[in-house]
């Protein structure tokens, strides 16, 4: 237990604020809550060691020891695999409850499979794409998540599945080759689902739960675009899809499940908020609206053939479902940012031919969002939230600095007004605090 807390407890007992019994009870409570620090340290060291050994084996294999005879190389291909499997069997038999053993042996086996596959490919000069390699690797190892109850392998599966999705979906995006849809990414995500749900249900304070949240958020943000293919004619649906995804994350981040989380333990809120604002700022330029102008041939045919349209639609429906469920438990200030995806969808789908109105909606919505945070910051007496709102306006102002379509005078006035707003808002909050104290 921490020394300052013990000192405080002694002080409180001396000052007759609490009895020595209560002080003992408090001390015992904190003692029982605390995990043995050595155990946590061992887990971290074990995981780090296994990761480094795993990467090391892969790199050693990649050197290609072609001076060795084929038979020796084949033995070396299976050696790490056998060692990894032996470690896993030992863990299952003797160290089942030891997290460090479970995670380390699983990670070593995870990389041993990759090194075995790589070495066999080298020996027999087997060609094949990197995405094919990753897919086979994951198919041979993903089951370790449940067999070994390994969260680190689960994180590695998410990371490698994202890599796979990127290779399949984005690789040929700027070439004349066709792009494929990385369906297996969804399969792996669904496969990880029950493991994540276990954490969500019963272990929400665990570091692995936070890591899973971050990995899932980053992974899905990267991989969603990989399902778009080359549907240039329906590109506003790509943004609707992303806006829905960020909207869903924002709703989750704000929900009761993450209410008590610190900001950095809530990637849903961070990604949802920043993602939505970035999309709106991006569409506050007239260049992108001009791309939408003019009727496109076969627009609806292309739209209904695009898998991304259905994916975006599904995300939109999920957003509506979450919004309805959250609205029931609505308390206090209504948050307009929850409706951003609908504002965005209406603007890009119905005002595509009237860029002036579309631009107006985008800029106005950024201002509404900023005002909401400024007001929220003022009500909560929170300088961080208030300045975040002001920062959104500052970003909009900065972007308009390069916008030639607005007269210099207006841009200048807008800048001055934003600067004054910053000073004034902070000054008023600080003044309010002083008067209260």
């Amino acid at each position: 237990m921490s020394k300052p807390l013990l000192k405080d407890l002694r002080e409180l007992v001396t000052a007759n604020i609490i009895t020595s019994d209560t002080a003992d009870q408090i001390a015992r409570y904190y003692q029982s809550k605390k995990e043995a620090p050595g155990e946590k340290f061992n887990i971290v060291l074990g995981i780090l060691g296994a990761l480094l050994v795993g990467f090391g084996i892969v790199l050693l294999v990649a050197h290609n020891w072609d001076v060795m005879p084929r038979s020796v190389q084949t033995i070396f291909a299976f050696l790490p695999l056998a060692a990894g499997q032996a470690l896993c069997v030992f863990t299952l038999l003797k160290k089942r409850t030891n997290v460090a053993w479970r995670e380390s042996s699983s990670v070593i086996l995870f990389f041993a499979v990759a090194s075995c596959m790589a070495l066999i490919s080298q020996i027999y000069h087997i060609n094949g794409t990197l995405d094919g390699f990753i897919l086979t690797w994951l198919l041979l190892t993903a089951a370790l998540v449940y067999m070994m109850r390994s969260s680190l392998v689960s994180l590695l599966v998410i990371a490698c599945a994202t890599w796979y999705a990127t290779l399949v979906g984005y690789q040929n995006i700027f070439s004349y080759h066709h792009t494929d849809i990385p369906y297996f990414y969804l399969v792996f995500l669904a496969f990880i689902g029950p493991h994540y749900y276990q954490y969500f249900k019963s272990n929400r304070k665990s570091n692995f739960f936070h890591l899973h949240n971050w990995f899932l958020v980053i992974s899905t943000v990267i991989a969603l675009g990989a399902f778009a293919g080359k549907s240039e004619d329906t590109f506003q649906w790509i943004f609707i899809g992303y806006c829905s995804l960020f909207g869903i994350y924002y709703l989750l981040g704000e929900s009761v499940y993450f209410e008590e989380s610190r900001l950095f333990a809530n990637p849903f809120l961070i990604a949802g908020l920043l993602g939505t604002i970035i999309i709106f700022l991006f569409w506050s330029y007239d260049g992108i609206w001009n791309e939408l102008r003019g009727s496109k041939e076969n627009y609806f045919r292309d739209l209904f053939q695009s898998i991304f349209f259905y994916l975006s639609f599904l995300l939109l429906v999920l957003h509506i479902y979450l919004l309805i469920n959250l609205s029931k438990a609505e308390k206090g200030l209504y948050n307009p940012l929850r409706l951003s995806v609908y504002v965005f969808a209406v603007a890009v789908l119905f005002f595509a031919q009237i860029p002036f109105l579309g631009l107006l909606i985008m800029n106005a919505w950024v201002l509404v969002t900023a005002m909401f945070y400024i007001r929220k910051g003022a009500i909560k007496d929170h300088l961080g939230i208030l300045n975040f709102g002001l920062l959104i306006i500052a970003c909009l102002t900065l972007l308009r600095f390069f916008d030639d379509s607005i007269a210099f005078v207006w841009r200048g006035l807008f800048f001055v007004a934003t600067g004054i707003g910053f000073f004034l808002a902070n000054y008023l909050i600080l003044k309010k605090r002083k008067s209260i104290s």
Partner: protein
Amino acid sequence: MKYGFILAFVLLAIIQWVVPGKIIWEKDEVLKKGESFKFKTEPVDPSHPFKGKYITLNFAENSFTDTINRNLAGNESVYVILGRDARGFAIIKDLSTRQPQNNNYVKATVYYASREKDSITVHIRYPFDEFYMDEYKAPKAETIYREPTRDSSATTYALVKIRKGQAVIQNVFINDIPIGELTR
């Protein structure tokens, strides 16, 4: 429950051995019993994050022209029936969408097909265009290849064993000397 986990793990471990083991067995069969073909080629040096450095082999004999329309499109599989020219290098004798009866064929992928006046040329990609080398030797291999190209009589070729549609590269030669020896 404990033994259930162990049983499931043993099953996974067996699969982890069987998948690469099957590849080894198949490739060894080709190397032992397959017929050798020499494919004229030029090596270029890229890299794979897991498998390491290799040279990509751009084969000279990579297209076939005739008048038959097989309705082949990009990424489709096709059987390439092989023969040899007067100097002993591999040539494409025919293409087939059905598995041939003899042994001298390889299953390849259509890159693209182009139609001219009354002929159709099918460009193909062989399933053996990567030759893995020591990380220091692979970049040298390309440089060495560029040098003898000044001499028009120099030939670079890949010796490939082929059996029942499967193929394994045995070695790559520049003027009949293995490329590995030249890069030492």
